[in-house]
C-alpha cells in the first residue's frame, strides 16, 4: 500500500467515524475554522459558555487581568480534587488524624504529593485571591454596575481565609493546634459574646450565658480548648460546609461578571 492509498483509507475511516450517528450526537458542529464554529465552540459547550462568545480585545490581556481570578478558580479545583483524594485516607479523630498523616506520607501511593499539592495550592489560592482583589480595585472594576459583585468577592475572600484556616488544623500536629489556638483565642474577646470580651460580665449577669464553655469561642472550638471535638467541627466545616457556600457564591460571582457587562474596561 503506498502513501496515497494509505491517505485515502484514512480519509475513508475518518468520514465513517465523524459522520456516524453516534459521533454527531456528541459533537454538534465541525472543527473547521469559520466564524460560526468559533462561536459554537463557546456557546455549545457547557464549561466554556461561562464566557461570552465574543469578548472585548482589552479584556483578554494578561497585563490587565493578571489571570488572578481565573487562577484562583483553577486552584480551587486543584484543591477539590486533591482534597477528595486525601479524604479517602484521613480520619478526623484525634487518635487517628496524625497517624493518618504519616500513613499518607509514607504508605499511600502518591499520598505525599497529593498532600503537598493540597497544602501549597491552598497557600497559592490565598495569595491569588488577594492579588485578584488588588487588581479589581486598581482597575476600578467595582464601580457601577459591578458594586454587588465586589461584595460577593469580599465574601469569597473571607471564605478562602476560613477554608485555609479550618484546613490548618487537620494535620493535628503542633503547628496545627497552636496556630488554631492563637486564632480562635481572639473570639474569646468578642464584645458581649466572648467570655473575656468587653461587657462579658454584664452579659453573664444579665443572661446567665457567656461562660468559657458557651461563648463565641466555644462555638468555633466546640469546647474550652482546641481538642477532639474541634477537629471534627473544623473537618466538617472544611470539607463540606464552607466549600458548598463558596461554590454557590462562585456561581453567583461568575454569573454576575457576565450579567454586569463582562470584564470591565474603558467605555
Amino acid at each position, binding site marked *: 500500500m503506498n502513501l496515497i492509498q494509505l491517505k485515502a483509507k484514512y480519509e475513508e475511516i475518518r468520514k465513517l467515524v465523524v459522520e456516524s450517528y453516534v459521533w454527531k450526537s456528541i459533537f454538534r458542529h465541525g*472543527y*473547521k*475554522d469559520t*466564524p460560526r464554529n*468559533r*462561536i459554537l*465552540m*463557546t456557546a455549545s459547550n457547557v464549561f*466554556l459558555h461561562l464566557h*461570552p462568545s*465574543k*469578548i472585548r480585545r482589552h*479584556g*483578554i490581556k*494578561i497585563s490587565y487581568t493578571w489571570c488572578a481570578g481565573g*487562577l484562583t478558580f*483553577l486552584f480551587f479545583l486543584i484543591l477539590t480534587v486533591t482534597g477528595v483524594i486525601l479524604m479517602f485516607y484521613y480520619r478526623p479523630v484525634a487518635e487517628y488524624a496524625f497517624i493518618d498523616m504519616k500513613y499518607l506520607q509514607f504508605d499511600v501511593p502518591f499520598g505525599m504529593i497529593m*498532600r*503537598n499539592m*493540597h497544602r*501549597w*495550592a491552598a497557600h497559592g489560592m490565598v495569595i491569588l485571591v488577594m492579588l485578584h*482583589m*488588588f487588581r479589581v*480595585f*486598581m*482597575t*476600578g*472594576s467595582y*464601580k*457601577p454596575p459591578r*458594586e454587588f459583585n*465586589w461584595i460577593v468577592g*469580599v465574601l469569597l*475572600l473571607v471564605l478562602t481565609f476560613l477554608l*485555609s*484556616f479550618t484546613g490548618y488544623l487537620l*494535620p*493535628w*500536629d*503542633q*503547628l496545627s*493546634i497552636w*496556630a488554631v*489556638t*492563637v*486564632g480562635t483565642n*481572639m*473570639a*474569646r*474577646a*468578642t*464584645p458581649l459574646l*466572648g467570655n473575656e*470580651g*468587653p*461587657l462579658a460580665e*454584664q452579659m453573664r449577669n444579665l443572661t446567665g450565658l457567656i461562660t468559657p464553655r458557651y461563648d463565641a469561642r466555644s462555638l468555633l472550638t466546640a469546647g474550652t480548648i482546641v481538642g477532639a471535638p474541634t477537629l471534627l467541627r473544623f473537618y466538617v466545616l472544611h470539607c463540606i460546609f464552607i466549600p458548598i457556600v463558596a461554590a454557590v457564591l462562585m456561581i453567583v460571582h461568575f454569573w454576575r461578571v457576565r450579567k454586569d457587562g463582562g470584564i*470591565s474596561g*474603558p467605555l
Partner: protein
Amino acid sequence: MAESQDPSKKQLIPASSLSPDKVHTWPHLVRNEFIVGLIAMIGITIWSIVIDAPLEEPANPTRTPNPSKAPWYFLGLQEMLVYFDPWMAGVVLPSLIIVGLMLIPYIDVNPKGAGYYTFRERKFAVSMFCFGFLVLWIFLITVGVFLRGPGWNFFAPWQEWDPHKVVALTNVDLNMWVAQTFGLDFLRGEVMAALFGLGLIGAYYSVGVTFYLWKGKANETIQKLGPIRYGIVAFLFLTMMALPIKMILRWTLNIKYICKLPWIGLNI
C-alpha cells in the same frame, strides 16, 4: 487540522462579523487561559515534588511552642495585638476591614478610572487602598512572619531566637504619661482617666466633622459625597489611621492605652 494550516484561512473570518474592538473567545481567550493554566499546573506540581509540606510532632495541648503563630495570612492581625487588646485587634478591626471593603463601591462616587489602571484620576481612593493593603496588611504580615520570635519579641532575620530575651515592659497609659510630663496629677484617677480617654477619642473622630464644616462647602468631592457617605469615609479613614498612630505612640512614648474603661473591660 488540515484546514487551519490552509494559507487562505484568514479569508474565512470576514472582518465584518466582529465589531472592531471584539475578538472571538475561541480561540483568543481560551488559548490564553489554557497556556496560563498549564503553566500554573506545571509550577504547582514541580513545587509539590520538590518541597514537602511541613509536619511537626503530634499535637500536644500541654506543650505550648514559643512563639505560637497563627497561619501567615492572619499574622497582620496577630501583629496588631501588640498595639491593641484582643477585642480590638482580633474582632472589631477585622470586622471593620470586611465591612469597609464591602462598602467601597458605595462610598467611592468617582465615576472615573473604571476599567483601566490610573492613579491620577483617583488619587485618594488608590492611595488609601494601597496604604491599607500594602502597608497595614502585607507589610505587617511580613513583620509577623520574619521578624517576630519567642515572646513575640522583635528579632532581625540574622539574629538567633533567644527565648530568654528580656524586654523591659515600661509601657504607661496615656493619662499617666500626661500627668507625669505636665504635672497634671488629677488625671491619675480611674474616672478622670476614662473621661480623658473618651474625650481624646471623641476629639479624634470629631476631626472628621470639623473638616466637613470647614472645607465641606468649598470642596467639590465632599459635596458629591454628601454628609452620610462622607461620614462613613471619614470614620473608616480615621479608624484605619488609628493603627499607625497607636504604633508610633508605642514606639516613641511607650503608650499602652489611650482610653481605659476597666469596669466593662474596654481598653483602647
